[in-house]
């Protein structure tokens, strides 16, 4: 009997590989036509600027392990348990999968920036998200909607994070460092442009992050303005007029940007609520899956035999996601052998 894993993003793939290596058979279920999840939207990774495609290739190679059975374009639609506790999962193609343990690695989705209407995403042409900027990096092309190289670019932190107005009270953790990384990448492509980050707090929590932030200021001439965007409007040239307060100066500020990038935060994955209700799990206050203990049970849920890893339980960067997946593999191995 196997371990069932829902989601073949970085967390699901890493956990599958580690479990397979320790002798378990794994059923890996992915709703999309390919593995990788949100990693597929990224160009380079912080802090070392590794190509996201390289990491994905490694994950893909790992899950070629003979003990791993990958089910692409598949979604679980029903869940039940047999008398001995064996987990049964019905997929949308009618397949029935059984396992001794289930690992939820359904990940996250990025915040839908349309919901911050005052920022003008979907209304003004030159407002894009950090995900769209990554795609622009993949294509090596940064232009405004009118076909010009942007002269002044603003990166807006905390879009969909730390904001009561959209019921997202938590910090998504990695938007700050993403902004720093993207600002540096922008600088490399546009040596003459003015690049500004509008932040509230710089949360440089990971190894190498603070150093990257400092380098962004010292070496790449990125400007950091401490103030949260209140609203944007558009002028006749399709440029954006933004209003923030430079809180360190104590003055309201109006500025024109050619391109505005919204650093979108992380939300529970699409289908998260249905999954929680299907598996009878608990929802954490932030909407993600509640773990059984914030220190000793970070991979455990309130259901025996059902585990969680990666961004299913809270926003995480890739480093922590992969670490968490290995931790989940150990937790499951222990469970299976006890």
């Amino acid at each position, binding site marked *: 009997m196997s371990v069932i894993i829902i989601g073949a993003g970085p967390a699901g793939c890493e956990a599958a590989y580690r479990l397979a290596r320790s002798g378990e058979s794994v059923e890996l279920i992915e709703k999309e036509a390919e593995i990788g999840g949100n990693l597929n939207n990224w160009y380079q990774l912080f802090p070392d600027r590794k190509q996201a495609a390289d990491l994905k290739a490694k994950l893909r190679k790992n899950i070629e392990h003979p003990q791993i059975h990958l089910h692409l374009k598949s979604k679980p639609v029903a869940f039940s348990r047999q008398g001995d506790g064996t987990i049964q999962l019905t997929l949308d193609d009618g397949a029935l999968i059984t396992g001794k343990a289930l690992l939820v690695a359904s990940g996250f989705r990025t915040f839908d920036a349309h919901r911050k209407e005052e920022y003008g995403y979907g209304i003004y042409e030159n407002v894009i998200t950090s995900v769209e900027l990554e795609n622009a990096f993949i294509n090596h092309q940064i232009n405004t909607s009118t076909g010009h190289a942007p002269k002044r670019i603003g990166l807006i932190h905390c879009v969909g994070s730390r*904001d009561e107005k959209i019921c997202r009270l938590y910090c998504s953790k990695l938007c700050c460092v993403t902004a720093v990384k993207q600002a540096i990448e922008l600088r490399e492509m546009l040596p003459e442009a003015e690049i500004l980050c509008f932040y509230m707090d710089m949360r440089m929590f990971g190894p190498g992050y603070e150093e990257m932030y400092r380098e962004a200021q010292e070496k790449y001439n990125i400007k950091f303005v401490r103030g949260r965007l209140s609203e944007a409007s558009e002028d006749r040239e399709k440029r954006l007029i933004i209003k923030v307060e430079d809180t360190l100066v104590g003055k309201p500020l109006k500025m024109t940007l050619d391109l505005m990038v919204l650093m979108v935060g992380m939300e529970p994955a699409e289908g998260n609520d249905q999954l929680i209700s299907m598996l009878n799990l608990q929802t954490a206050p932030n909407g993600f899956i509640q773990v059984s203990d914030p220190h000793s049970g970070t991979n455990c849920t309130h259901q025996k035999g059902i585990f969680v890893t990666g961004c299913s339980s809270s926003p995480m960067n890739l480093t922590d996601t992969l670490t968490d997946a290995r931790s989940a593999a150990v937790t499951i191995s222990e469970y299976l052998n006890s």
Partner: protein
Amino acid sequence: MSVIDSLKKDIHYIESLNSCMNCGVCTAICPAAEFYNYDPRIIADTVQRQDEESLEALLKSDTIWYCGECMSCKTRCPRGNTPGGIIMALRRASQEQGWFTESEKGRQQFALKRVLGTNILNYGYCITPDIVKPEMHPEQGLVWEWIYEHRDDVYERTHANYRHSGAGTLRKVDDDSLNELRQIFEVTGGSEFMEKIETYSLRKAEENGLDPESYFLQTYMANNGTHGEEKSNR
């Protein structure tokens, strides 16, 4: 009672300040901050720090009178605060203590009380054309001057019922309604509140050696021209 204790009893304060993270969204959206030496974020921060000396200085300053109470800040704050509501509580505290007479913008409370406060009780309107005298309102310009001089004819032609009993725009508010209005002011403490503004203001007038009328005109017309200027201690 300390300023902070009196604020904590005010429903506007209770509803308006949870905890501020100084993000500046309120200042960025604030129309008053665009023109005045005014920063709603600093208001929230000052109150949050609960330093009595700073609070007293704030209540005696022009600062709390710059806000237009448009409440744009409420629509934006990611922590659910309302600096405009904090201002309402600060203004009330300043009025209760009489500290509003310490600043030019604060002293305008007297003009407001004498104009709007008196009008509502006398006419049932905060503003009626009769009392918008052109010499007191140069900003209204020549057109208003002409309308004012010909107001009976003008309002008749616009089918208003100006100063007459019965139905229609600008009609005379009947005595029963006026009495009811005055009673509401009595029962809710509105009259007592306005009396307080009057008392503190006349005390200030006397302190400055001005008769009430001159003091009124001063509160109405004075502008030291520094309200938009940056203060060096910012």
